[in-house]
């Protein structure tokens, strides 16, 4: 197992390199130079050159890339073009809020969706199932920005129950309560999709598992249906569900761009948008690589989880 993990980590390296090269190329494809943003319109070529030099943009692309790579390996992800602040601390300060938001969302969603999916599967064909299935279709189809705006319209603008955005409140009283207060709407908006998606998936796998022969065997043993569900059903249904968790995990960092934008959540999503708008390429590179690392890590985690849950899988 250890060997396997090490092997996987090693194979992740070329993928990461590929991604960083891809991201680098992508950014340099764009017309216009980032310096256009930072030098004043009447700067002289000499001054523009000075800025380019200070930002390292005067070097040929491959040198720029290798310089970036060399520094990145030492933990230096470069500086923000405009403020000249190092990228890493900013990135780190934004991870917290995003993980808070997405972590809450995912946990909340799974806690709701997994039982819902199971209920839906057990009641397959009844009105409960139809309602839940229909509901989950609504959930995956409703654009989150529309839902977000709608909730803001109703709960913030009209009813004034919740703030329109932000992560904490000025003039409020409790830190934790205030955070919860701010979390409610964005978490609802984000959860709509995750709950719906997971419910659908859980339902499908549960139905599939219930069609398996070993469930028939368990029934024929005379086990009670709850026992069949918990002992034979859920564990086997969880195996495919791990895949979904695996695809959801990376969204811990990058999944909430639009929602963070609507609710002005000071997380990575908004940082991304800003980095794009302001052409903060080092920041973008860092975010891209970070996201890729998370994806690869999540994949690895999923594979390990498979091995834990499924005795048929052994990595040697």
């Amino acid at each position, binding site marked *: 197992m250890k060997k396997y993990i090490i092997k996987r980590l090693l194979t992740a390296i070329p993928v990461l390199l590929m991604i960083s090269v891809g991201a680098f190329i992508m950014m340099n494809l764009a017309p216009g130079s980032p310096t*256009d943003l930072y030098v004043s319109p009447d700067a002289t070529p000499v001054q523009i050159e000075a800025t380019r030099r200070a930002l390292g943009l005067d070097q040929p692309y491959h040198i720029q890339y290798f310089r970036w790579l060399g520094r990145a390996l030492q933990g230096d992800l470069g500086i923000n073009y405009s403020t000249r602040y190092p990228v890493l601390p900013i990135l780190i300060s934004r991870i917290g809020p995003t993980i808070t938001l997405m972590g809450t969302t995912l946990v909340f969603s799974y806690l709701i969706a997994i039982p819902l999916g199971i209920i839906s599967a057990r009641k397959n064909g009844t009105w409960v199932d139809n309602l839940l299935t229909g509901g989950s279709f609504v959930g995956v189809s409703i654009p989150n920005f529309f839902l977000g705006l709608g909730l803001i319209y109703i709960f913030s603008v009209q009813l004034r129950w919740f703030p329109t955005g932000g992560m*904490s409140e000025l003039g409020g009283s409790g830190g934790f309560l205030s955070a919860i207060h701010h979390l409610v709407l964005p978490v609802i908006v984000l959860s709509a999709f995750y709950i719906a998606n997971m419910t659908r998936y859980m339902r499908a796998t549960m139905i599939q598992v219930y069609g398996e022969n070993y469930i028939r065997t368990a029934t024929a043993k005379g086990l009670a249906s709850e026992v069949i569900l918990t002992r034979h059903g859920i564990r086997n249904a969880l195996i495919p569900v791990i895949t979904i968790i695996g695809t959801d995990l990376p969204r811990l960092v990058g999944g909430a761009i639009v929602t963070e934008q609507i609710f*002005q959540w000071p997380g990575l999503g908004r940082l991304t948008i800003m980095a794009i708008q302001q052409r903060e390429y080092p920041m973008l590179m860092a975010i891209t690589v970070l996201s890729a690392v998370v994806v690869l890590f999540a994949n690895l985690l999923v594979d390990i989880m498979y091995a834990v849950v499924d005795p048929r899988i052994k990595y040697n």
Partner: protein
Amino acid sequence: ACGNGDVPDLEDDGATGGDDTEETAAEGDVPEVEEGDTSTLMVGLTNAPDSFNPFYRPGVAGTWIQRFFYDSLLTMPTADSFEPALGSFETEDNQVFTVTIDENANWSDGEPVTANDVAFTLNTIADPEVETSLGTSVAMIEGTNSSGVRLEEYDELPGVEVVDEKTLTITTKSPVDLAYLSEFLGFNVLIAPEHVFGDIEVADIPNSEAATMPSVFSGAYEFVEYDTDNYVHLEANPDYYRGAPEIETVYARIMNGTAMITEFQAGNLHMAAGGGIGMVPVQDISLLEDIDGLVVDEFPSFNGQYMIINNERFDDPQVRQAFAYALNRELTVENLLEGRGEVLASTYSSASPYKDEDLEPLPYDPDLAREMLEEAGFDFDTPLEFVVPTGNAVREQNGDLIEQWLSEIGVEVNQSNYDFPTWLAMANDLDYDIGLMGWGHTADPNIASYVQTGGASNNMGVEDPVIDDLIEQGMSGTDFDERYPVYAELQQHLQDEMPIVPLYSDSQFGVRVDYLNGGIKEYWAGSLHDLHEWTLDPQD
């Protein structure tokens, strides 16, 4: 000469992606403020400050924040008046200016502010190696080229001479208007501490800690922390030479226009930074006016929006004028801006004392426009490439209207939208037919960089000897009365030749709670001149 100062530069919206819909705002761990707390001022910004480097201030928001902790030699309470701050100016011949530094002025670490600091600041700005955005502020000094870069033959600017600890002289290349020097050098340049920056290689200054996290200040406040895109935390400088500020703490919080409205509603903000960096879109101003206890002042601004024309492709003034007749600019102001702005006749808005009040904008006359085009043999078959930069909602909407108006006179246009850097790159290459652009002007009427041949922001390919000549004349005038007629003539000439079509200038607003004594002034860039005297005193 413009666009780098403290004047709200509309382009900055585009540049930092900073309009209402895309702006970057966030609330974070800003300490909570109790109701009725008079020691903390909450200021709303819609643009994030980009730099705390006194030599390099590409963005308006950064400059505005820097004024909290770096003083300039002069302040500018109104567009045409100056008051001494760190220093005062005197001249006899309009060429040699004596600068006297305030006796009490000192840095927050106890060091006095000296003539050496001023000389160091000016020399650094003029250094060819330095990254700076202030070239135009020193371009009048003896020993610099027209962009404000020190000529090669000198190691130090010959035009800057330290006389004693608190006195220095500045010699200009030719006589200039004191007001011009006062604004550009006296007001725009923030004096940097030599004992902090002096040891750093000029090329390394922008990335240095001294520039990104300043620690020695001459202003009313001290910089504490910048939480990127979230807030800037400032604390009062108790030893401020003009008197310790009344308000102890300032948070400049970055948020989008919508959040600003709701934060005002919630009582979480005391004022908006105003200008182009702290304002809700004009169309939403009425929402602020509806909030109890909020004062909303409307002032004319120096900003202007223009339809720029590729003068190389459209070298016939009749064609360009026809474009102006085709646009219903009155409608834009009345409906899009809800009357909160004015139609521009040329580049000067009513905020500027140099505006020729007698010059009327060309009227909306599509029939005439069409006739003129036909007469000029305009090619109606080739669609015009019309580029609109993204980031300013009103401008984009105006772009759609312009497309419609042009098509009504039979001119087809292909509108495309690019973010500002891309658009700027295209404009620099003259890779367009017509486009929209916003300029923020200074109180000084010099517009050389926009319309002079070879001007840095002359993205239209304007080469008009008359304009060049008038601009030279205007620059060499040494007082208002001497310069005014020159600029009046320039305005008339611009209308006749129409190298750009001036569209509108939208008002700027001062928004504050009614218990804030202080806040945004009519001359926005100088609003912070009495910062140390601002108070919060809630009636209840």
